[in-house]
């Protein structure tokens, strides 16, 4: 028998539902105060520093982390609820999302104590923004082809080279990046890369925004020229970054953002068709709802298994594979059905604007954070095919 896939039917505990009410009430207040428009995901810049601080003040950033670093020691399922409610409301999470999901946990695991004490509480307060420096002009999916050098010098390293497609680098306070400290070996081509904490907004770093087909400027080229990183900013083992990426990836791949990024068009379609849909619209909506429901149950299941200390690596990759393929198709399926919406539907213009943006967004969904091809390779390995 092939190693059987597991998707335990996780039920969110009662305290999650209380929390969900609090998050909804908070978001409703923010919307009423004009912080953001939940119907307009295509806003120019998703950066909202004051909102970020208010989310932090609620205790909803770093909420699973130890209290001594500003965390709340709450469960991953509670964090899941906060994340999905923010996503569905189209809240401006850019400033804190990466730090909360990914960078904080890396620091928790690999940073020296004084750095943890310095940075983690500020993440929890919503004060700092993180970027991730992985891709380079000649290394994308093939992460271990990275060439940006970290050369040993007195008390630290000098960085030279270029990272690219770096989301939020233009607003980030820090970046967690991999740089080459040694050449790869014959036996192990993944050897020689080291993970570093990089302080942005310093001399030696130049951030060049790159326009996207959506009209937004959310990713960047980041050029390092003799940029100095002190020794205590090395995260984990020198030359051994390849050993450090595994367990975090399950969180990164299986969250609600992996199937809800274009969800708003479905809500708007339901609004447009009204209470008595024709058969075609009803069937179309039913199929889409069946999908989003299933994706969510899979994603919650992985969150629950992670909380229980299991390592559902293949399951998490599957969630990202089919979740992103689905959220990519969603605007196109909604477009099919929008053709039958009555001219008189009052939200017709909103729906059309959203579709325009979602269709432009769609191509990136199966590329960012690990392409479909890479994910299917990981799944194939899990099935014993490679």
């Amino acid at each position, binding site marked *: 028998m092939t190693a059987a896939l597991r998707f335990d*039917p996780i039920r969110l505990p009662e305290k999650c539902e209380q929390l969900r009410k609090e998050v909804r009430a908070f978001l409703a207040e923010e919307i009423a105060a004009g912080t953001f428009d939940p119907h307009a995901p295509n806003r120019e810049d998703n950066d909202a520093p004051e909102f970020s601080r208010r989310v932090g003040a609620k205790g909803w950033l770093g909420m699973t982390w130890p209290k001594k670093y500003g965390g709340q020691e709450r469960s991953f399922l509670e964090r899941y609820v906060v994340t999905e409610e923010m996503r*569905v409301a189209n809240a401006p999470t850019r400033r804190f999302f990466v730090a909360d999901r990914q960078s904080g946990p890396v620091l928790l695991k690999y940073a020296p104590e004084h750095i943890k004490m310095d940075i983690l509480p500020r993440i929890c307060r919503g004060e700092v923004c993180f970027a991730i420096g992985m891709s380079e002009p000649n290394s994308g999916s093939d992460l271990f082809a990275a060439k940006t050098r970290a050369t040993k010098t007195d008390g630290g390293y000098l960085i030279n080279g270029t990272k690219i497609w770096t989301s939020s680098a233009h607003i980030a306070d820090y970046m967690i990046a991999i740089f080459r400290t040694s050449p790869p070996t014959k036996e192990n081509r993944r050897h020689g890369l080291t993970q570093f904490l990089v302080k942005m907004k310093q001399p030696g770093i130049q951030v060049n925004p790159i326009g996207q087909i959506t009209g937004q400027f959310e990713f960047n080229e980041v050029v390092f020229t003799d940029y100095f990183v002190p020794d205590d900013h090395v995260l984990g083992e020198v030359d051994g970054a390849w050993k450090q990426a595994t367990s975090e990836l399950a969180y990164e791949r299986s969250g609600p953002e992996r199937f809800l990024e274009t969800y708003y068009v*479905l809500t708007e379609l*339901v609004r447009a068709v009204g*209470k008595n849909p024709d058969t075609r619209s009803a069937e179309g909506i039913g199929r889409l709802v069946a999908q989003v429901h*299933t994706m*969510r149950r899979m994603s919650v299941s992985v969150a629950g298994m992670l909380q229980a200390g299991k390592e559902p690596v293949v399951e998490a990759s599957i969630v990202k594979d089919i979740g992103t393929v689905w959220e990519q198709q969603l605007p196109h399926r909604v477009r099919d059905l929008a053709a039958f919406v009555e001219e008189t539907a009052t939200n017709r213009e909103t729906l059309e604007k959203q579709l325009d943006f979602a269709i432009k967004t769609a191509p990136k969904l199966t590329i960012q954070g690990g392409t479909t091809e890479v994910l299917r*390779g990981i799944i194939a390995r899990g099935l014993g095919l490679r």
Partner: protein
Amino acid sequence: MAESENIVAETAEKIFADLADAQTINHDKQGAWKAPLWQALTEAGLPLSWVPDDLGGSGASLAEGFSVLNVAGRHAIAVPLAETMLAGWLLTQARIASPEGEMTVLPASPKDRVTLNADGSLSGRARGVPFAKDAKHFAVLASGNGGVSVALVDVAKCRIESGIGLGGDHNDTVALDKVQPVTTRPAPKGFDQTTLMLMGGVVRSLQIAGALEAMLDISVRYSNERVAFEKKISKFQAVQHNLARLAGENAAALAAATSAADTIVNAKSLDTDAVFLEAAAAKVRCSEAAEKGSSIAHQVHGAIGFTIEHILHRYSLRALAWRDDFGSESYWAVELGKLVANRGADELWPLVASR
């Protein structure tokens, strides 16, 4: 659910391994495997898992029964185990004792209706009834002036138009012409044909998820054996990606089906929007997975998988056939779409996030 610590599912697994080997069954043209398998299942109390002791069953929990069905799907079991379980469950809803032997349920399609006449007899026509020809009794849901009732009916009193379904199992039309049932009792409050269809749909969803797991397993194994262009076909990226997609379909079906089953296990009432969403979505998603998954499994196998000698069709065709029972995916999608539209746009997410 589907835990190895579930002793009932383990018992089922053992019986299937011993007496329902796919290869053996596939080569047995006489059907000699059927009687010993049914006897072993009966001795283990599995067909009446969902019937309490005092009504003639073995009194397993809903959760245990659901996990048996998932295992049964994995073995593409071609005796009316799922149908007898569902029939026993339906009879139990009305506190009717279950008889021994094979049973099935009707109606098996949301569009068919059976009427309870004023004289206590039943009339109607039910199409696509799985294993009707193999059953000794029917558990029937009927409507009359007094509301919804459950009836136990002797098969001999009905006219059966025999048919064979896509999966190769009996799939018959049952005509009831003023048939006097053995017993009739009112269904519990709120229980109607939709409830039966939702439960039947979850049963089929679990079986489809099981069949997809088997298809994934035998496809992976085959790809690691078959050599083409001087290497195992499992080493070709195109094949790997197809199998990764099959794993995705298997995963989606498994997650949807076990989630729906778990919802029913924990539901205080089956007449809620949350149960409707779970069960309808499971049938839609599992049926879609059956289509996509079985086509990949066949693609990986090439011509050999298209032969009657190969076991693949036992899983692929049954998974496809199960889509039709208790409401197809297009039927449930329409019903789910109507429910969502009726609740309104702002009530969609609260429904999806309700558990």
